[in-house]
């Protein structure tokens, strides 16, 4: 435990936009960690609810409150938190989520010796579906059992199209060197940063789920337009890396086509599906998407 004045080892960044109903759980699971040498920076991204009062109510000297006067988006809020962080290692928490109480301890053990050359990653459990329809089920990260015993390859990260900041423990130096969250992105700022981080540091990952994520009533991820917006930006940023990985490039183009299709942008969806096919013709799903997008385009 650090003495007053000495910075803690870990800074936890928790951006929030209202959601005060969920904060006791997300904050509680950080403050009650078995590893308690930490500071928790709650970044209020222009909430209308009184988050300051809630945060000050804890009376815990490890909790800090930072506010944006207007809503700048979650990527900017995380960057604000990282800038304000005094710890050598940074973790992220979402307002809706819960950390298992041994998360930091386990990830710090994975990173020994703490020389800043590695970041840690863990499994995440997430509930999706509708309780009223009785179709709730669990989604795991990673989706299927993966061999992470030798770390996570940057090329896998590039192809993955998924990341959970809540599962990370990253050296602050690596975050700064990688350049922080890209505020142009609306949903994939986490995956985008992980791609850059994977080039800075090795990733020590454990499959064990140490974060529990609940799908709350208002989720960031419902709008296909956000995904359709982000993916071209990312494909552009990493065009050089993707040139050497045509299979992954094809799969990401197909993913773009899928989101464009869901966003009802038929001509663009058709074009993206065709680009994917050009990179790798043997993809029946891409042909099917091409056909469906073409039909929609001609019928409307």
């Amino acid at each position: 435990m650090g003495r007053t004045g000495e910075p803690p080892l870990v800074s936890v960044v928790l951006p929030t936009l209202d959601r005060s109903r969920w904060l006791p759980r997300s904050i509680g699971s950080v403050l009650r960690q078995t590893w308690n040498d930490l500071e928790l920076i709650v970044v209020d991204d222009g909430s209308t609810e009184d988050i300051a009062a809630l945060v000050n109510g804890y009376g815990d000297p490890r909790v800090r409150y930072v506010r944006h006067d207007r809503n700048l988006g979650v990527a900017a809020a995380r960057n604000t938190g990282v800038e304000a962080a005094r710890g050598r290692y940074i973790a992220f928490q979402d307002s809706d989520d819960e950390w298992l109480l041994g998360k930091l301890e386990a990830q710090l053990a994975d990173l020994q010796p703490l020389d800043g050359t590695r970041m840690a990653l863990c499994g995440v459990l997430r509930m999706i579906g509708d309780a009223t329809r009785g179709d709730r089920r669990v989604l795991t990260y990673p989706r299927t059992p993966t061999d992470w015993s030798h770390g996570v390859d940057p090329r896998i990260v590039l192809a993955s199209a998924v990341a959970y900041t809540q599962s990370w423990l990253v050296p602050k130096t690596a975050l700064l060197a990688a350049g922080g969250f890209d505020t142009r992105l609306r949903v994939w700022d986490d995956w985008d940063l992980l791609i850059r981080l994977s080039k800075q540091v090795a990733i020590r990952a454990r499959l064990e789920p140490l974060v529990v994520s609940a799908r709350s009533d208002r989720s960031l991820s419902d709008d296909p337009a956000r995904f359709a917006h982000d993916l071209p930006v990312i494909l552009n940023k990493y065009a050089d890396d993707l040139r050497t990985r045509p299979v992954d490039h094809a799969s990401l183009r197909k993913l773009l086509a899928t989101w464009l299709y869901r966003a009802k942008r038929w001509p663009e969806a058709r074009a993206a599906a065709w680009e994917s096919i050009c990179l790798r013709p043997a993809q029946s799903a891409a042909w099917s998407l091409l056909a469906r997008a073409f039909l929609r385009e001609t019928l409307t």
Partner: protein
Amino acid sequence: MTSLPGVPLVSVILPTHNRPATLKRAIHSVLAQLHGDLELIVVDDASDQGTHAAAATFKDPRLHYVRLDSNRGAGGARNEGLRRARGTLIAYQDDDDVWLIDKLQKQVAFLSSRPDIGLCLTGYYRVSPGVTTYVRMRPHSHGRWDFAHGPLGGFGVIATPGWLVRRDTLAAAGGFDERLRSWDDWELGVRIAQVAGIGFLDEPLFIQDRVQGGHMWRNRSVYASDMAVILSKHPELWRGKPKLLARQYFIQGRAEAAFNSPEAARRALMRAIRLDPAAWRAWLALAGTFAGREGFRTLEQRWQAFTSWRDA
């Protein structure tokens, strides 16, 4: 809901046997609950490893440690814990499981708003090597808890770490039947249903760890004796339900054939067949009993492989 000053609202009973590593994690997840008005009674069921030392690392005055000098099994340890409990609401924790920090808060709120309910159940995550599932404990249909389907009958396993039960309800229903080594929680559920309403929350509020933990107390070799106790104790459950009763005898027969006595197996399987002559599985198992215990187990494995192939 209020309690007397100085008396915790919730008593959490945690039986433990030889699992000091996961025990610390289990204890911590109880003491860190957002609803902190609780006492935690750790009942050491005659462990021979560092259980006391593990519990002693917690300096929380809400934690009480009790040691049983001879092994009584989970049900006996829970009964012993209840004797020392002071709260009006009773919860249970297993030494290899983890509660999410809002579990008690949500269950206390549920019981506060539903005076007609005596036992509140929750769903949970079952984390196994390679796969995690969400298990709900909920009624069969029309909101009714139909115990005639038996302990392997489908509304999941009634896992005690998911319980929050009123003290009064337990007083009326009785304690865990210590003759049962596997299904004592299910059987107590039957008695609770006779005196109180059972409700459930459809969300995962704890984690059952099948990776680091085990299911020490769910061992197929005790199914036969457990089923014999259950069938003799609760015949009324199966009145007018011959097919469901046949299924219970089938389960008993299989367990007898695989672990105990082929003759006892044949007796149970014949009862199943008499009740439900169309139960072809019982006929198959009956034939299998002539292969002896190991032979029967081998046949079971072949059958499992066949059905996996067929259903894949």
